[in-house]
């Protein structure tokens, strides 16, 4: 569902790229600290954005230390230390992953269904802990997912309406990254990013959903593939423009260049790539 909003790594300075990676590694370590070894299997680049925003706004610096990694045991890598942003990212990752697993239970493929069904009870305990740390966020995520299911079951044909629950979910998450006067701007930024994620997903999955009979908002509205892609890009571009207006009102004390890259380069790139076949974009590989 997530997974589209990353920086354009080619345009990051090496220093910035290293910093970005260090937050990823820091998130992995934070997951281990809070939720144990197996929670790290859930790790992905998505929630790094949440950590960047939260620590970027607060200015908190947990320090960076070289640490060894189970995936790369030979060389220690710069790893961001504990911080409120990483804590929020770790908790949110648990909450979102839990719901994603539950969502996948409705998947057509039996093998995937079984895998998720097997994983669920394993993570249930961690999910409960995460929900205890962040009760309002957990409730907001659950409410949004329920609303999403209801809309899809009713066969919603409006892209705006269908994208709204994901927008609300990310709005709640991004609001938690900020404090006081910054919260409304962060919340609105999250709302538009959430809607973009949903619409890009709908565009990317157009063919797959048509084949499997799964719900797709563009399909439900009777829009053919090419038109759906064009509409998705246009609608996402509008939201990207509005998102940057919200971003302007947030004073980033740290990570500003990385976030600028995400907003002005990464986001447009993701939108332009709507509907193109995706290979899993893993920025970890190249600049080892």
């Amino acid at each position, binding site marked *: 569902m997530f997974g589209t909003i990353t920086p354009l790594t080619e345009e990051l300075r090496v220093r910035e790229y290293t910093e970005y990676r260090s937050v990823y590694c820091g998130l992995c370590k934070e997951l281990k600290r809070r939720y144990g070894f197996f929670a790290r299997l859930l790790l992905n680049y998505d929630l790094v954005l949440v950590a960047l925003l939260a620590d970027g706004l607060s200015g908190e610096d947990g320090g960076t230390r070289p640490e060894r990694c189970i995936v790369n045991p030979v060389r220690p890598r710069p790893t961001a230390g504990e911080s409120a942003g990483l804590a929020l990212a770790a908790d949110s990752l648990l909450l979102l992953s839990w719901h994603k697993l539950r969502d996948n239970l409705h998947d057509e493929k039996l093998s995937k269904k079984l895998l998720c069904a097997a994983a669920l009870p394993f993570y249930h305990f961690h999910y409960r802990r995460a929900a205890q740390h962040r009760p309002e966020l957990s409730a907001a995520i659950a409410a949004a997912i329920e609303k999403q299911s209801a809309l899809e079951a009713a066969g919603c044909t409006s892209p705006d309406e269908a994208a709204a629950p994901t927008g609300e979910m990310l709005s709640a998450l991004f609001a938690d990254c900020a404090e006081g*006067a910054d919260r*409304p701007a962060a919340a609105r930024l999250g709302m538009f990013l959430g809607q973009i994620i949903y619409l890009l997903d709908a565009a990317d999955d157009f063919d797959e959903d048509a084949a499997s009979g799964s719900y797709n908002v563009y399909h439900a509205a009777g829009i053919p593939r090419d038109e759906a892609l064009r509409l998705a890009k246009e609608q996402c571009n509008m939201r990207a423009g509005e998102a940057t207006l919200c971003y302007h009102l947030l004073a980033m004390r740290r990570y500003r260049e990385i976030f600028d890259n995400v907003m002005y380069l990464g986001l447009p790139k993701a939108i332009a790539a709507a509907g193109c076949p995706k290979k899993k974009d893993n920025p970890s590989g190249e600049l080892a």
Partner: protein
Amino acid sequence: MRDPYEVLGLAPGASTDEIKLAYKKLAQKYSADNYAGSPLEATAKERLAEIDAAFDQLMGQIRTGGATAGSSAGQTAGAGTAYADIRTMINEGRADEAMSRLSAMPGADTDGEWNFLYGSALYYKGWLADAVRYFEKAVSLAPGNQEYQAAYNRLRNSANGNVAGNPYGGYQPTAAGCNCCDMCTALMCMDMCCGCGRGC
């Protein structure tokens, strides 16, 4: 108040020209035009006020002129009509309520203001695709109206991929990385410019 140099993003001791340039850039960024009808309008106005104060302090003069007088969705034409309440509702964030009130009123097919307000409520909620349709209708029903035109233009502009305040300017990502010819050429150029002791 925060350090005025910090507010304008300048190093202490910046020149008058630098101050003016920084002010102009920031005033454009937080311009009321960008935030009219948005729930973040008040925040943007605060930023603008802060920037004005910083500029005044650094330049040691009172700014004249109405540069900070932005228009919000509530203040232009429509005051005193049935729509005045609706505008207030939207500005207060009661978008759904405004929409249901509007739905009960006539004017959907004939009144530019009706369409603009319905679009504004949708815009406030973040339902941009629907909002732009209503703005479009408002413009076609009331062609001279600047407020409606501005709202429509802003969304259409973003729809084409133009984003305000892009620090990367006209960056166009290249499809492939550099090839051998690029590298050779670059090395040759560097050699000519930075030739140790040879000079240009």
